[in-house]
């Protein structure tokens, strides 16, 4: 059972899947870190992005990796608009209201997709979907290896934005001390919307990385978002490094649970871990004490 010939590929594949989980979680944790709310619409937005990537290929013939270049700014704008014109004004600054509004958005987006596209599951057939890379100890699917690289690049870019640009500085300031940031002239509503936009843009990239090897249907986002919640809680709410490491870790756990317990129970392993972490250490492994 523990033969390295089975174990090593399972761990490597888990790491590759985990990287994309990490990217989804990165968007979620960024929004949490700054706005201090859990975005329940995250999964539905991922579904929307996956549909967008799917139809960009089906209708326009765009390769998903190429489509990412267009979808990322588009979803940034979508996220910006949602926070600026829907969530922000509707919530009246109350956390409970924000929870309800993002939940309502999730319901609207998911069911609008169901209404328009039906419950069918769709897949893209790309020429390179089954290409593999030989890394000596295992064969890895090419699209997932590309995905791993892209996620690391995106994380680096995001880190540079946060560390070096003025907008990044403003985002960090608002995350730390909202009132102080406002007093020193930072437009908090704008920073909130930019953060939400960045978080949503992460989803567009994640969707383009997923679509070559994955399927899409109106409920697909839910599967990812609960995993993303787990990662975010595990890595510490608002911690960018935590999201990435948490993502890789959860990917490996899922892969090993799937190996030893069977596919349908692989998910249960994640949920149980999630509940345990929430109950025992809600601030996460990397987060500050809440």
């Amino acid at each position, binding site marked *: 059972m523990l033969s390295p010939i089975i174990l090593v590929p399972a761990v490597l594949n888990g790491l590759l899947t985990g990287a994309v989980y990490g990217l989804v979680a990165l968007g979620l944790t960024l929004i949490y870190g700054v706005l201090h*709310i859990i975005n329940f619409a995250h999964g539905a937005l991922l579904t929307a992005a996956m549909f967008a990537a799917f139809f960009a290929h089906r209708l326009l013939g765009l390769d998903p990796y190429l489509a990412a270049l267009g979808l990322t700014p588009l979803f940034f704008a979508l996220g910006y608009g949602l926070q600026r014109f829907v969530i922000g004004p509707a919530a009246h600054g109350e956390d409970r209201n924000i929870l309800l*509004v993002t939940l*309502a958005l999730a*319901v609207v987006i998911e069911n609008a997709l169901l*209404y328009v596209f039906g419950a069918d599951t769709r897949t893209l057939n790309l020429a390179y979907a089954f290409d593999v890379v030989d890394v000596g100890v295992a064969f890895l699917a090419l699209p997932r290896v590309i995905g791993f690289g892209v996620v690391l690049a995106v994380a680096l870019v995001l880190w540079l934005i946060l560390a070096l640009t003025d907008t990044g500085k403003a985002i960090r300031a608002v995350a730390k001390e909202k009132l102080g940031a406002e007093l020193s002239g930072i437009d908090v509503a704008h920073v909130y919307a930019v953060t939400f936009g960045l978080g949503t843009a992460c989803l567009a990239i994640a969707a383009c990385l997923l679509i070559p090897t994955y399927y899409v249907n109106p409920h697909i986002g839910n599967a990812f978002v609960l995993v993303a919640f787990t990662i975010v809680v595990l890595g510490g709410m608002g911690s960018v490094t935590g999201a990435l490491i948490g993502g890789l870790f959860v990917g490996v756990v899922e892969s090993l649970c799937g190996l030893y317990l069977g596919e*349908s129970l692989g998910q249960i392993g994640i*949920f149980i871990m999630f509940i345990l972490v929430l*109950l025992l250490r*809600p601030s996460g492994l990397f987060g500050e004490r809440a």
Partner: protein
Amino acid sequence: MKQASLAHIAVVVAVLAAVPLLTASNVVLNFLVVALLIALVGQGWNVLGGYGGQYSFGHAAFFGTGAYVSAILQTRYGVNAWAAFALGIAGGALVGALIGALTFRSGLKGSYFALVTLAFAEVLRILASVAPITGAGVGILITLDLRPQAFQFQSRAPFYWIILALLAVSFLIVRLIEQSRFGAWLVAVRENEEAAKAVGVNTQRVKLAAMTISAAITAAGGAFYAQYFLFVDSGIAYGPWISIEALLAPIVGGIGTTFGPLLGALVVKMLGELTKLVTGDAPGLDLVIYGGVLILIVAFAPRGIAGLIADLRLRFARARPRLRERAHG
């Protein structure tokens, strides 16, 4: 919002009880049974969310437990349907107490509480979709046995009166809570938990009690569902749809009020039926509209329809003397 008096409750229940005497239409009665069922489930959410300020996104956990416990006891162990119904409620309350004990002890509130309740409901849904005792992916079909002893009836009217009676009991429970010291503690927790703790309220115990009562009321809805539709599966019992309906009804109607869940359930279900009339039976569209209504209510009428009515009445009452002055002047 003024508290509902016993007379108010009596009038509302009496008016609703008279409906089957006026119409024998199955369409009308079926609509009302479902609306009152949602009102009951929403009333459960209202106890914890409306009065206690703890927003659960996973009330499906209690609804589903009520439905499954009742269905499993009847079909697998031959327990009498009425006894199974009562045990379903007890099972839901137990699950509520367990989840409450775990989450409140860890100090989870706000976003975290919403998240962990959602996760518990999802775990139960996945378990129910693979475990043999819940019929796994197939679900449980309760055997047709149209006798009152088996909690099954030829016509819809008895079902309607039973769900109305359950709802009436929930009105009384909520009124009792409102008037008790426990209710005052609960509202104190909602308004400012730290302050409540500082003046000596045992906030954990108060929240735990509220969650148990809340879960029991919602589980009654689940057990009734099993009896009315004679079918339960993991998607119905533990699916996210019921968690959303549970919070939608009280928020639309008026959060933290006795009649809010009933008002909200009637309005939301009416909207759902209207949508079906206009567009045919399109999957998803009714939920799109529910979501839109939820956003609009949170944005423009945070106290729900009950709050809107109260505001209008107040405005009207203020406007009247002015009109009179103008008439005299």
